[in-house]
Structure formats: C-alpha cells, structure tokens
C-alpha cells in the first residue's frame, strides 16, 4: 500500500487547518491537508453573513469570502502544500505514528507524518423529543449545507430551536432564501447569541420565545407542525402546549468537539462544559500531551472562526518550529496578543475560564 510522507499533516481544511497549513508551509515545512469534504473551507463555505471580529481576522467580510482568502493564501505556498480532498482521516496509531485515511469510498491510504495538526472542527448536538426522526427535522448544519452549498431550501416554514448565534444566523439566512421562520425557541431566559443577530431577525418579524422549547414534532409521514411549551425556572414544562404549523424543524442547540482522533492518540483530555465537551490539555502553542500532535479551532473547544484562525497559525508555526524550521518569536507574540484581545470581553469569559483549566505551562517532561 502507498504510504504518503509529509512533514506536517493537517487534518481538516477549515479556517483552523488552512491557517495552520499556511504558517507551517511559509516556515518551510512540507504540508499535507487531508479534508473529508469535497472542498476546503470547513464551516466557512456555508456562512453568507459578514463576520464579527477585528480587521486582522477579516471582520466585516462574509464567511465564504474568508474561505476564499485562506485558499488564496494556501495557493501562494506553491508546492509546499499538498491537498487531498474527499479524504477522511479515520485512525491514528500512536506506536507506529501512522495515520489511516479513506479517499472517497474505496481507497484506503496510510500517511506517515512527522507532526500532525488536528483541526477537525465540531459536530452538532441534537435533543430528544417524540417524533424527532420524522423527515423535516434537521440540524442547523444540514439546513445550511442544503441552502448555501446546494441552493435548495429545506421547506417553506421553519421552527428554529435555539437562539445561540447559529440559530439566529441560520434564521436570518432562511429569511434571505425566502423561507418563513415561524419562531425561534430558546429555553434560557435570554438569547445566547449576540444581541445584534437577534435584533436583525426580530425587526424582520420573527418572534423569539424565551423560556420555550419543543415538546414533540407532529406529522404522519413528514413534519406538519410542532407542539411548543413554556418552561419554568427548572426547565419543566408549564401550561398548555401550543401548536405551531411548520414543515421544517431546525435544531441549533450547540456543537461539541470532533475529538475522536485525539482520544485515539492518547492525548490527555478533560471534560470542560464551557468548551462544550471533552478537550485536550494544551500548552500555549497548541501542543497536546502527545508531542507529535497540535490542535486548533473548534476541536479544542467550541469558539469562533476568528479564534480558530489564530490558533491555527500558532499551531502551524509551532509544529514547523519543532522540526527545526525558523519562526520568529514576534509572530508567536503577535498571535497570542490577538487571541488574548478577542477573548478579553464578557462574551469571552467562558472561553477564558475553560481554556485556563486545560492549559499547561509546558510539556518538557515528555518532549
């Protein structure tokens, strides 16, 4: 079997992975990006809204445009970066330092990298309720993929569950696609996403019902509606459920890191609610307890593309530096400062606390 060799293997071609690849390659390392999807960009390719953040991280630019800018940056790296699309990394064997991957559905390959940056992103959470297996119940990611990648609307009238940034933004994108949003339900007493995202859909007439949730989906063969209930302080249903007519129920109830490969690699992990799942311990340059593996982006805690890109740059530089390539300490300092600034405010508080609980001073012991 063919065994592919590379200095740095980047698993996942989202904003974190592309940033890592660009930095490692511009330091001089040979980089291979393995991406399971048919295109690079990760979540960014589905984001038609303008991003928040600072100019350095392309704030005010639409997500899919940011993906294009990152792909351009990768193209500048010439032969230093090889890209394998439709290639899903399926396993890591720490003893042999061997990575296995599926190319398409038939071909199986071995990759033997000196160092790995894991940037596999996140997967969606779902919530249980009766009839949640009816056609018409979707995760927000699927709704976005249908709409923004394939140009297909999921239905005519959607009930959105969850008023975090994803629920709010996907609602806005549905409105842009001409789909009606019956309501956004949120179990908490306040929206979880940015206030301005909520204001944007509210002024277009979408009700946001706080302290509300879905109690069941209605329908025979497909979704025709949902029963919606109010919740008390303990999140128990109160009063009579109300019926909402809709043909689509969209769940936007959170993400959790896609951390399987980190487990396989034996990285030291911890469950951190503020980071939305099990995440690895890391030093400040994103190295895990396995001295061959770095990570960046949502896989090390659910955050934002802006942070994912900076973490990716740090991880890429650090992986390259460990192979003897020259990276200036100014570059590291600049990235650390930008990351610090992004997380400095109130909305960054949970991330700050979460990250500080899994950050170690160094891995000297096993490096």
């Amino acid at each position, binding site marked *: 079997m063919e065994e592919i060799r590379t200095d740095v293997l980047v698993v996942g071609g989202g904003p974190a992975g592309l940033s890592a690849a660009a930095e490692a390659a511009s330091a001089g390392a040979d980089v291979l990006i393995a991406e399971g999807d048919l295109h690079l960009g990760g979540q960014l390719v589905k984001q038609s809204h*303008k*991003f928040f953040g600072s100019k350095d991280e392309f*704030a005010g630019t639409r997500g899919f445009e940011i993906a294009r800018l990152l792909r351009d940056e990768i193209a500048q790296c010439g032969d230093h970066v090889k890209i394998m699309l439709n290639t899903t990394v399926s396993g890591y064997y720490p003893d042999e330092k061997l990575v296995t991957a599926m190319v398409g559905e038939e071909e199986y390959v071995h990759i033997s990298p000196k160092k790995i940056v894991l940037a596999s992103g996140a997967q969606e959470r779902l919530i249980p309720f009766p009839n949640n297996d009816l056609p018409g119940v979707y995760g927000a990611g699927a709704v976005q993929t249908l709409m923004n990648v394939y140009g297909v609307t999921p239905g005519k009238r959607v009930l959105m569950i969850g008023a975090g940034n994803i629920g709010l933004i996907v609602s806005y994108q549905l409105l842009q696609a001409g789909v009606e949003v019956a309501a956004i339900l949120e179990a908490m007493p306040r929206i979880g996403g940015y206030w*301005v995202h909520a*204001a944007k859909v509210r002024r277009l007439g979408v009700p946001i*019902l706080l302290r509300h949730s879905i109690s069941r989906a209605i329908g025979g063969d497909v979704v025709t509606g949902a029963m919606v209930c109010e919740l008390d302080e303990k999140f128990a249903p109160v009063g009579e459920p109300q019926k909402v007519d809709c043909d689509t129920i969209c769940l936007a109830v959170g993400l959790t890191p896609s951390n399987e490969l980190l487990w396989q690699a034996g990285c030291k992990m911890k469950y951190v609610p503020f980071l939305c799942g099990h995440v690895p311990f890391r030093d400040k340059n994103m190295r895990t307890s396995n001295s061959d593996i770095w990570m960046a982006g949502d896989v090390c805690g659910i955050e934002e593309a802006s942070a994912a890109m900076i973490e990716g740059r740090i991880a890429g530089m650090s992986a390259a530096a460990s192979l003897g390539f020259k990276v200036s300490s100014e570059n590291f300092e600049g990235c650390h400062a930008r990351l610090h600034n992004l997380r400095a405010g109130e909305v960054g508080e949970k991330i700050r606390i979460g990250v500080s609980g899994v950050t170690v001073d160094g891995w000297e012991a096993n490096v």
Partner: protein
Amino acid sequence: MNAPRSFESGVLTEERPGAVMPPQDRWREHKGGLVIVECPQRIPCNPCNTSCPTGAIMPFADINDVPQIDYAKCTGCALCVAKCPGLACFVADLTFGDGLALMKLPYEMLPSPAKGDRVECLGRAGENVCLGRVENVTEPLRDRTRVVHVSVPADKVNDVRAIRVV
C-alpha cells in the same frame, strides 16, 4: 406567535451604552444625517470604527467595547451602515423637508427595491410602522449589502429600523 418586546430577546426598549440617539441640536440641522448605532452588548467586533472615514466612530481601547460616537465628525456617509456585520448602524437625515426624514438602512434581502417604490417600514419587533418611499439604493462596498435610502414621516425616525418590499 406573540413574543414579548424584551431586550433579552433582541428588541431595544430604551437607550443604553452602545445604543444612544444623536444629540437633537446637531441632528436637526445636519445635512446628510447622523448615525444611529444600536449595539448595546460588549462583543469582540470593531469594523464600524475601522470603516469610518472621519473617525466619528471612535477608536476602541478594547475590541470588546461598545461603539462611541463623536457626532461632531459624523457626516452621515453610511459606510458603517454597509460594513457593520450586525446591521446595527442606521443613518437618519432630519433635513429632508416636508415633514419627512431620510433614513439610510442596511438591506440584504431580495428583491432589491428600486427608486420610487413604496415599501413597508418595520419597527424593532417587525411591526408595520408606516409606508416609506425609496429615494435611492446604493451598494457602497459592492458586497451585496445595500443601503436603502427611504423617506419616512419625521416622527417615525425612532421607530423604523427595516423595510419590507411589498
């Protein structure tokens, strides 16, 4: 379904830091209008400042700060209206005349309205506030965020925040 007009659900109910109306004196006289920013939550975001050509949206000490405006410098150019990812900037020109004000509102829906169209003007909770006339449609950054200039009765300036093409 009826949702209460609460701040917690994304409806501005009163002035707050980051959501302050322009000073009346200057606003009444300033041709081109002044910006209204409704960004009352500290989030890590600053394109309003970096896109402002006159420095009216003041530099952020911390990227998480809410925007602060030096109204002496605001020209009502509406670049921030086009740039703000939260669609939280609006311009209102009270000098339009005939008891009307000209509002410059961000618009990212289809179809795009055309000059002369009558559109529904919506309030912060999507309620129908009044009809307005489209006076101009621009796309300052050529990035599909349009700025729709719509004339509305001057006393509706504090209520109108969006339009619907009917």
